[in-house]
Structure formats: C-alpha cells, structure tokens
C-alpha cells in the first residue's frame, strides 16, 4: 500500500517538476507534444535488430533531462516500475531466434538476444520520452495543447476534471482502505462483501460530489463548455525547436551514425 501511495505522491512531484522555469519549460506545449510524438514514431520505426542506431537517440532525453533540470534517478525508478511487461514479452526472443547474427571475437550473439536488447532500448526511449513530456510541460498544458490541436473539447475538459479530482478521491479511497485494514483481525473483513460496501459507498459519494460540482458550476454560468483563457503562442522559437529535432531524428533514422563513425575510426587505425 505504501508503494501505491508513493506512486500518487509522484504524480504531484511531476507537476512540481513541470512548474520550473527553464528554456524547455517555456516552450509552447504543442511544440513539445509534437516533438515527443515524432521522436517516439522514429524510434519505433526501426527494424527489430537495431541497437547501435538507437544510441544517438539518447541525446534527446539526455538534453531534455539536463536542460530542464529533471532528477535522473527519479525518472529511472519510474521506468523500472513498469519494465516487467516489455521484459516478459521480449524475454522469449532469445529462445525462438537462435541464429547467430553478431560475432564479437569468439562470442556469437543470437538474433534473439539482439532483438531483446533492441526491445528494452525502445522501451526506455519511448516511455522515457512520455515521462519527460509531462515533467517539462505539466498535465494542464498538455491538455491545452491537445485542445488547440483539435481534440474534442468534451474529451479535454473531461481529462482536466479527472486530473483535478484524482487526488481528492485517491486520498479518500486510501483513508477508507487504511481504516478497514486497522479494524481487520486475521484478515477478517478484507473479503468481497466489505469491499463492495466500501467501493459502492465511494461511488455514491462520487456521484453526489459530481452533482454538487455541476450545480456550483451551473450557478457560475457553465453551459457545457470551458473557456480556457491562458494564452499560448507558437513562436518562431517553438517552430525551430520542432523542426530542428525532426530533421535531426530523420537524419539519424537514415544514417546509422555509430556504424559510420566506427568504420571511419577502424579505417584510420588499420
């Protein structure tokens, strides 16, 4: 339980990180959203044996982490928490694909291991990019960007509502679960029956809360639409940011830079 609580504490921490004021934080949220998507699509479009070609791509998360002052250990811990699924599916690759495709001296490495590491690198890059997006932009600004880019208003408003009440309800649920755990002896009362009372009550209270919120908003002139007033401007700098990274990613997609560099150096030596 402590683990889940700290996971929610982390959400708040992500917003704290997003409230910083660096060059990257000041960029238009749309610019950061688009760049993140271009990055993830490029990374995922590589063939399944790609490893060395991925290495230059680490420059994107590293520049962003360093430039926007994000704590690396915190992000790594978050990545580790969700690694098991990719690991579970990828771990079968070495068993099915045993053909040796890479030779390092006497050591032959099978295609399965190569593609397994490729999956893990993909995982770190793509998931890391999403975490960095939130930690540099903040959820509200991402919703604003989505809204301005044509996502249905109903959906973005809903996202904002959900995010706003996430903390309130999670805290309430955690209090209920803690109260039940404290009153339970030998696991009594931890079963389905009490569970249904707790969750059912929480649900009813949530419904009432939603109605109160709606009435309060209705009194203040809510007509089914929220007008977001915070101005965001897409400047030349934002355009340069998106264009610069996009060209860079496409270049790295077309040219295997490490291979190129390695060939050049081994050519110099021999």
């Amino acid at each position: 339980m402590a683990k889940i609580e700290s996971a929610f504490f982390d959400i708040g921490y992500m917003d704290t990180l997003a409230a910083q004021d660096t060059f990257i934080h000041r960029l238009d949220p749309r610019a950061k959203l688009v760049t993140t998507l271009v990055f993830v699509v490029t990374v995922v479009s590589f063939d399944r044996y790609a490893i060395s070609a991925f290495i230059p791509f680490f420059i994107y998360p590293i520049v962003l982490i360093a430039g926007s002052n994000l704590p690396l250990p915190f992000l790594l811990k978050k990545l580790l928490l969700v690694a098991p699924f990719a690991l579970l599916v990828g771990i079968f690759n070495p068993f099915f694909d045993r053909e040796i495709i890479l030779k390092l001296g006497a050591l032959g490495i099978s295609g399965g291991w190569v593609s397994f590491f490729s999956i893990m690198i993909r995982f770190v890059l793509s998931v890391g990019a999403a975490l960095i997006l939130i930690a540099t932009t903040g959820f509200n600004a991402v919703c604003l960007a989505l809204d301005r880019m044509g996502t249905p208003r109903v959906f973005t408003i809903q996202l904002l509502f959900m995010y706003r009440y996430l903390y309130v309800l999670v805290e309430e649920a955690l209090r209920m679960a803690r109260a039940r755990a404290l009153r339970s002896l030998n696991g009594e009362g931890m079963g389905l029956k009490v569970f249904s009372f707790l969750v059912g009550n929480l649900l009813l209270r949530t419904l009432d809360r939603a109605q109160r919120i709606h009435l309060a908003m209705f009194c203040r002139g809510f007509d089914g639409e929220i007008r977001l007033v915070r101005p965001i401007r897409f400047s030349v700098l934002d355009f340069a940011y998106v264009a610069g990274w996009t060209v860079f990613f496409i270049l790295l997609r077309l040219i295997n830079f490490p291979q190129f560099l390695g060939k050049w150096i081994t050519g110099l030596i021999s």
Partner: protein
Amino acid sequence: MHMADALVSPAVSGTMWAASAGLIGYCSKKVKKEIDDRKIPLMGVLGAFIFAAQMINFTIPGTASSGHIGGGMILAIILGPYAGFLTMASILVVQALFFADGGLLALGCNIFNLGFFPCFIAYPLIYKPIAGKTPGRARVLGGAILASIIGLQLGALAVVLQTVMSGIAEISFTSFLILMQPIHLLIGIVEGFATAAVVAFIWRSRPEVLERAAAGTPIGALPVKNILIGLLIAAVLTGGAFSWFASTHPDGLEWSLFKATGEEELAAPEKGVHTSMAEIQSKTAVLPDYGFKTPEAEASGEEKWPAMDAGTSVSGLIGGTITLLLVVMIGYLIKKRQKAV
C-alpha cells in the same frame, strides 16, 4: 495488460490510434448531443473514481492474492457506452503519461483494447441483454460478471494480435495466446465479481442511478456495425499503404502461425492475400526499395537479414561506444551550464 511502445510497429499503432481517435471523436459528438451537461463533470470525476477504487483491494478466498475492480465495465454500466468509453480513454491517457503504462504510441492500442471491447462489445451485447430493461439483482450480477470476463478476454486477444502483427517480439501467436488468455480469464473472473458486487450494492441503495443509465442509451441506437466496417476499411488501408513502412516482418502473424503450427495450409491462403497486398504496396509505396525484403526471401522463410560480418559489428561497437560517450558529455555540459547560470 497494457500494450507497450516497445512492442508495436508504426503500422499497428497508427491503425489503432486512428481507430481510437475516431471513436473518441464519435463518442464526443454523441455525448454532446445528449445535451445533459451534468454528464461532463460526472465523467471526469468518475474517471478519478476508478483510480481511487483501484486503491481498495479485497482478498480472494483461498489464495494469498487480492483483486480490485476493472475500469471499463463499471463505467459503461453507469455512464452508458459513449461517455464510458471517453472516460476510460482519459484514464489511459493519464496512465500513459504519469505511470508510463504503455506509452504514447501504444496508447491507441490500449484505448481500443480496454475501452472499445467493454463499452461497445461486452456492454451492449452481453450485459444489456442479460440485465434487461428492468433488471433484477441476479440478472445484474450475472450480466456484470459475464461481460467483464468477455470484455477482458477480447482485450487480451487484441494484445496478442497487435504484438504478433507488429513482429517486434519473437513470441509465436499460439504460445502468447496460451500465456495470455488463461491469466486474463482469472483476472476477468475476479474483476467481474468485484464489479458485480459494487453494482449490486448500488442497485440495493440507489437503483435510480442504474435505471437512469439504462434509459439514457437505447440499445437499438448503437451502430456497432458501422464501427466495425470503419475498422475494416482502416485495416485494409493500413495493409495496403502503410506496411512497407512497418517492420521487417510485414507478415508477422502468418509467419508465426506457420512457425507455431508447422502447417503449410494455414499460411497458404494468407500468402495469396499478402502477394496481392504486395502488389498494391509496390504501386502505392513511396520508397518501395527502402529496407523492404522481396517476397521470395520471405516465402523461403530464411532469416539471413541483417548480413553482418565481424568487421561491421566491431566498427558498430566502437562507433556506438563513442556516440554514447558524446551523448553523455553533451548532457553533462548542458547540466553544468544550467548550474552556472
């Protein structure tokens, strides 16, 4: 259960993104039409409720493990399919961004797997007919349990299909299927009972909540057929136009089926489709030669690619190490400059 970015190809994730985005647009229009603007805050707050409710566990009798409610089914039951789907989608957006569950590209898959199946298949086709217009306690229970199980089974099947079609993971279709379906059957049963228990509680204490939801969305109005036709068109388009761009195994499913079953005739009809697809591809593809294997090489089933000799791999290793050092150094320099400022 969450699909991960690392396992999907651009073609699969693109299709699923298109499908999910289309559904979100469609549902938004539908929800807006229902004029009842009370629903908008209700949806958002209920989304938060799902997160909160998953903090409360119950112990499963006879085992040491515990379970909690799933999201999609209970949302569909309370909000109806359209608003339920939108709420589920927003939950998954938050999970992808904050908990790194899945990732941005796989988000389309996840919204589809965990939102579409419970809200548009299990709810209208299983829960509604069983629960009926004036549901009794037993019918609500039975409907909720069965719908949860089937919704989750379909979702798990979709994960398997998406993974195999992407061809990034080597795992074969059948073995992944054998791995996924039983686990999700157990999870589905647990979630089904939990959902049913909560719904039954609501039914006892405030039945009007469920009645309102049931009245709000007449079952005849649900155009599942249109949605399915749209998906079919999207799938064909993807096969024809995008798969040159997709993966080294455009035929990943066929290939793993062949490998898993060892039967030629399973693969044979697929091959016919595939060759005609390949013809369309060669006509539509912008870069037909780029990184794309010839159909002959695929048919022979040889895995010669990539042809790496020792020289290339050594230079790759050296180059890779140097690049890594460069990248780390750039990061370090930026960090240092930041501190100085």
